[in-house]
């Protein structure tokens, strides 16, 4: 019994940090609709700032002052990020901002390395709270009790702010319809900035307050990211009490998991999430989201046309250039081109889902890595020949996509995105920890191609045929009745259903197809590298694909491919430099600001500007109600809200 209570208390204490950071994320998402990938970075900065302050400020007062100051400092950093990076892109298509926040992650990683160095910093202990209290004979650290006591006050304070004050009313109103709030005389941009300050400050506070239980290191940002996404989704997006309950639930279950299922670490959290979302798709306290066309808000995509003669010639010329590469280019250029084509196919498969289907998957790496692992496992355990493994890889990845798609497509918008992320993480943690079968972190090695492909040049040709073939296949499908049905389901699910289209089935099939093709790219990958490791299933890999699709241009068919090729080339160049993450991060932010329609989209706009376009300039279509989706969802996409 004593142990039970002690474990419960440990769980509650662990929930404190998780809640602080997650509530900030939830708040920012609720109001600005921005999925702030950089939230983990704010948390990390809070820890580093707190550490430095605690070196200077002595005693108990100094300690707590440092915690508060860290929150303040990180809040101010959040404000700077909001003003410099996000404000210029608020008008960009929905979710484009998340690319900018990814740039922020890279910048902060390198800045933190420059300022605080590479070594892990062990957090100072809280003065006056170093010891333990015996509760029913079990030792409970005093600091744990302090954390348990503080959190409800923070929760209450936030709840009061949001539900009982004028600022809170304005924030909630802005969550729903920013423009209307402005039209009623409220300076909503400062309201946003304020919310960003508060959200970032909470993350910073979370970072500082965990110092006595941990420390500050450069891996903190990504380490907490999945956990806080899970908390926010389980609690219900935008719900603060929900975030608290979810943080407690996850933390307490985790503590018991550690004792009774010691190998369950990592997996448990995602299993809890899957269970909760199966029963309550919008989280414990979340409300059903108004169906919004994510990724497609703003200017609608232009009608697509079969490629013209010029475009065909251009693609043909590119293909010939590719095929001639081994003859004229260096060996390394061939290797680089192989990598780029593989990544392009991966990005194109996500683009198919995201651009044409409006289905934003945050966990697309699951199928890339999935395909690679299916092939790798077949070779390793069944000694399958390369050809068979290669054929079965997309089948395996497609099967995974069938299951994940079925679970996720019951949700829409950001809930859909978050659930794809969580399920991808579940797959990752399985692969990572089930090492008897998957090799765990040591991965699967010696997965080399069959002898007829073992030469880099022949493998390159193989990659060109399969990779470019896959991309062309996706393009053809985009022009097929099925591709049209997919776009119709995205443009107006209501109309599509009312004209006999089973939109869920269409989306499910698209999800499966995209998964299978990602699996093909994964298979190409594994045989080109000869090995596969769990990091090919990681969040960062999924983010890579997301970023290139957005950077390339969601609303253009070639966006994914162009984005992927550009980023791979830039990365190949930049990674030779010491602070390449800083540079790449800034580069991403610059592109996001200057080309809010993605590279292809913005180039096309520029082209139109210079050479004119076919659109009827006298059209008055946009002047009227109902022509845009805005009446469906005033002020962009609504959902959850802050409560």
């Amino acid at each position, binding site marked *: 019994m004593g142990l039970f209570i002690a474990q419960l208390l440990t769980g509650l204490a662990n929930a404190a940090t998780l809640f602080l950071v997650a509530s900030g994320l939830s708040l920012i998402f609720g109001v600005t609709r921005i999925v702030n990938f950089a939230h983990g970075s704010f948390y990390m900065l809070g820890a580093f700032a707190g550490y430095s302050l605690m070196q200077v400020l002595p005693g108990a007062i100094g300690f707590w002052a440092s915690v508060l100051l860290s929150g303040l400092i990180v809040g101010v950093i959040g404000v700077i990020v909001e003003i410099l990076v996000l404000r210029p892109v608020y008008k960009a298509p929905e979710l484009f901002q998340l690319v900018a926040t990814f740039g922020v992650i890279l910048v902060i990683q390198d800045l933190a390395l420059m300022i605080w160095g590479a070594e892990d910093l062990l957090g100072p202990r809280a003065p006056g709270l170093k010891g333990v209290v015996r509760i029913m004979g079990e030792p409970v650290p005093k600091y744990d009790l302090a954390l348990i006591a503080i959190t409800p006050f923070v929760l209450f304070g936030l709840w009061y702010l949001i539900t009982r004050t004028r600022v809170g009313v304005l924030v909630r109103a802005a969550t729903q319809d920013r423009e209307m709030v402005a039209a009623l005389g409220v300076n909503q941009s400062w309201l946003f900035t304020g919310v960003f300050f508060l959200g970032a400050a909470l993350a910073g506070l979370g970072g500082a307050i965990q110092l006595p239980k941990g420390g500050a290191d450069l891996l903190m940002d990504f380490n907490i990211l999945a956990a806080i996404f899970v908390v926010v989704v389980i609690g219900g997006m935008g719900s603060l009490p929900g975030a608290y309950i979810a943080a407690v639930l996850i933390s307490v279950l985790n503590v018991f998991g550690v004792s009774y299922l010691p190998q369950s670490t990592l997996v448990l959290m995602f299993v809890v999430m899957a269970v909760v979302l199966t029963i309550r798709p919008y989280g414990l306290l979340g409300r059903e989201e108004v169906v919004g066309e994510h990724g497609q808000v703003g200017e609608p995509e232009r009608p697509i046309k079969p490629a013209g003669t010029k475009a065909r010639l251009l693609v043909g010329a590119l293909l010939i250039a590719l095929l001639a590469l081994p003859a004229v280019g260096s060996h390394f250029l061939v290797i680089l081109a192989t990598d780029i084509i593989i990544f392009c196919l991966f990005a194109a498969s996500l683009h198919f889902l995201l651009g044409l289907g409006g289905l934003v998957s945050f966990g697309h790496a699951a199928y890339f890595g999935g395909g690679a692992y299916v092939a790798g496992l077949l070779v390793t355990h069944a000694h399958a020949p390369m050809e068979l493994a290669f054929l079965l890889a997309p089948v395996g990845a497609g099967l995974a996509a069938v299951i994940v798609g079925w679970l996720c497509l019951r949700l829409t918008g950001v809930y859909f995105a978050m659930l794809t992320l969580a399920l991808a993480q579940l797959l990752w943690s399985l692969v990572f920890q089930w090492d008897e079968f998957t090799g765990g972190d040591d991965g699967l090695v010696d997965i080399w191609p069959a002898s007829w492909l073992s030469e880099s040049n022949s493998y390159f040709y193989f990659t060109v045929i399969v990779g470019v073939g896959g991309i062309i296949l996706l393009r053809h499908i985009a022009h097929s009745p099925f591709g049209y049905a997919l776009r119709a389901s995205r443009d107006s699910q209501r109309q599509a259903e009312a004209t006999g289209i089973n939109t869920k089935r269409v989306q499910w099939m698209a999800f499966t197809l995209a998964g299978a093709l990602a699996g093909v790219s994964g298979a190409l990958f594994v045989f080109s590298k000869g090995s596969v490791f769990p990091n090919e299933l990681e969040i960062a890999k999924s983010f890579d694909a997301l970023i290139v699709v957005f950077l390339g241009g969601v609303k253009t068919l070639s966006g994914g491919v162009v984005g992927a090729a550009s980023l791979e080339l830039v990365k190949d160049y930049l990674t030779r430099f010491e602070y390449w993450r800083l540079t790449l991060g800034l580069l991403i932010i610059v592109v996001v600001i200057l080309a809010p329609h993605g590279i292809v989209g913005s180039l096309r706009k520029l082209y139109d500007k210079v050479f004119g376009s076919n659109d009827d300039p006298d059209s*008055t279509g946009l002047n009227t109600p109902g022509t845009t989706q*805005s009446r469906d969802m005033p002020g962009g996409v609504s959902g959850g809200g802050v409560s």
Partner: protein
Amino acid sequence: MRQWVMFVLELTGVNSFYGKAHILRDLGFSIQAGEVVSLLGRNGAGKTTTVKSIMQLVSPASGEVTFDGQSLTHLPTHRVAKLGIGYVPEERRIFTDLTISENLEVGRQPPRDGVFEWTQDIVFELFPNLAERRNNRGKALSGGEQQMLSIARTLMGNPRLLLLDEPSEGIAPVIVEQMAQTILKLKSEGLPVLLSEQNLHFAKIVSDRAIIIEGGLKKYDGAFAELESQPEIRDAYLSV
């Protein structure tokens, strides 16, 4: 009792675009104190764009909008609202997750010199059926009630001028009649109103003057009564 100091809204040579589409072409008119003016025209004629151009929700490419002598052009929308221009959008756009009281709170602005100061109680007097549901969420309201709430919310900002964009759209005739009474009441107390409308019957009841636009160009600006004597204009642009 309620009193409004005299303000004048003036548009001169306004050109507005939506993307590449040229919506308003050299549009100019003014609204005097105490006047209710109807802005009439076909769908797509530019009525909503006119209202949005005043609010700076659409930024005019050229021309000027002034209010009480101050230029509104390129001001942020919230500053326009702060100057005392109350905007009721055509989609009503109430905050459905907030209660009626909270909706009104969002609209509340500090008192303004020489302008009647609205409070929730006074607003509820004007719209009694909102009063009884003040703690209900906006999503529970019917379309007519939402329209009322949208107007009430704007009044909470103590406006010096009211912009109503198609308030009768999609509302039962009996409610439209009630709304006409409300507008007439506000008018009798001196609040100037610019009303963008498709419903001629309704516009005729509440307004003195009509401005007709077509393809973003002003085609008529004069008393409603005189419109009757100019059937060619009425039939060409309004056609009832």
